[in-house]
């Protein structure tokens, strides 16, 4: 992960107002996106997605991604409009042991009577800044023909 982005990513992940999305694809390539309220970065720089339901489509898609070296996407959008898309590879599905137990307890503390299927570790391989205010400047400077003329009128 580019170090310049890491503090921003961590900041967004730590902010309860941030919208956190995990997007995957089904076997036939159809997109599938869900919110991931527990999403965060661990100390090793992997995204941690907690999958609560064993038979969820996301769980299966992440498994397929791990098995066949495919990528998933994560979108983080803050209240202030900062937005980042992270492409990552699911590299580990933890279903038992101390790490699993720690998250199982956290989920129960947060949601009461609930379960945890899998702790997914997603290795980021590409981060794209999708913050509109920054993308707008970039777009207008690099692609002047993308601008509608009415916006340029005196």
């Amino acid at each position: 992960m580019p170090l310049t982005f890491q503090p921003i990513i961590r900041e967004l992940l730590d902010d309860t107002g941030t919208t956190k999305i995990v997007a995957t694809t089904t076997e036939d390539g159809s997109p599938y996106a869900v919110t991931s309220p527990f999403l965060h970065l661990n100390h090793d720089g992997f995204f941690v997605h907690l999958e609560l339901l064993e038979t969820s489509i996301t769980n299966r898609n992440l498994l397929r991604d791990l098995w066949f070296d495919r990528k998933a996407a994560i979108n983080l959008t803050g209240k202030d409009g900062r937005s980042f898309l992270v492409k990552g590879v699911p590299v580990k599905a933890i279903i038992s042991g101390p790490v699993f137990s720690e998250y199982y307890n956290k989920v129960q503390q947060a949601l009461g009577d609930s379960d945890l299927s899998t702790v997914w570790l997603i290795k980021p391989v590409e981060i794209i800044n999708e913050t509109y205010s920054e993308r707008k400047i970039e777009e207008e400077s690099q692609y002047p023909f993308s601008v509608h003329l009415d916006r340029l009128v005196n």
Partner: protein
Amino acid sequence: MTKGEDAEHLNDIVAKYPEVPRLIILKTDVQRRGVFYTDAAVSVLDEKKHSITGTHIFGTRDGKIAPRPESLLLRDGTSIITTPTAIEDNPYVVDLLDGQPFLYDGGEPIEEVDYWPAPAFYGKLARSGILMQKIVSARPQRLVINPHRYCTFWKNGNGCTFCDIVAQIKKGKKDLQIQARPKAEEIAEIVAEALKEPGRYSAIFLTSGSVINGTEPFDEEIDIYIEVFQELGKLFRTKKFPSQIIGTAYSEAQLERLYRQTGLMSYTADIEVLNEDLFNIHCPGKAEWIGYKEWKRRLVKAVDIFGRGFVNTGLVAGIELTSPHGFKTEDEALKKTLEEAEDLASQGVSTVYIVWSPRPDTVIGNQKNASLDYYIRLAKGLHELRVTYKLPIMFDDYRHCGNHPDTDLSRLLPF
């Protein structure tokens, strides 16, 4: 075959079956060839962190009882339930790479593995003073109980040809102080302690040797299960709880009794090999007391009681190819096995397999198991039957057992 040839074979099979995950092919091959733990791999074993071999109902391939990792976990959460194998027999090697256990083949690192985590109740003593793990053991998400470790088919020498349960209990008694018949109350005491660990278990599994005694044959075997299940049932607020037995094929009346009087949710009766002649040869006790056709009929009847997706049968895959009676080619073995598995699947019974691991204290322990190609085709075939007949297999999947490459593939089933 040299080590290098085996490594090449793995990659060939991975390339040949791009629709099968490499990790599942690797798992299958590790089960096929076994593992050898280096001193370094054993040196990082920590009984506070890892499950260490102890309460196996069956023996090891190298014939030794020694502290080693109980089994391995892959990155996808799949277990490799395997058995230590002598280095001369060309197994995969578990060594360390930067302090992490790693599978090696031909000196090359292949894949990281984790040792199974130790449950919190390991190391604790039951009220009787016995170490709890001598009575109840654990897989990554399952509690394992062997309420009766002797198989009475051996009384007249009719034990299965691939089985060493009796030899193992003799070794276990001597070396591990394992009880042949633990008390139901003590089992429940230990399970209660185990369940204090949140998120650690999603099923309870019981299996025993067959017990022919009773008014009707196997009544006593069922009595043992019922006694244990009724004690376990006191621990739960629901009448039924996620659980499985691998038992003998019971009559309808026995199955009804087992289902109605306990919290048991799923039922497995291993037919071991899907061919009547081979069944008679490899499972003479099962043939003598029940018979092949009756075994299958009882499996189908069990679906009426436990429901579709809650009944299956297991194969010890590879014994169907052993000499002198086995199929002459893997193609023939696969065709015949899948034909019979389809007949069962069409009636609601799933078939799963384990990779046969030839062990020294067994009748056919001096023979070799099948090729990796065969095992992958068998896994695909059994999985595809579940797709065709929409048969869920969650009760015997990667999480609740971990010993079946075919049910690993079924993790992606949409039902």
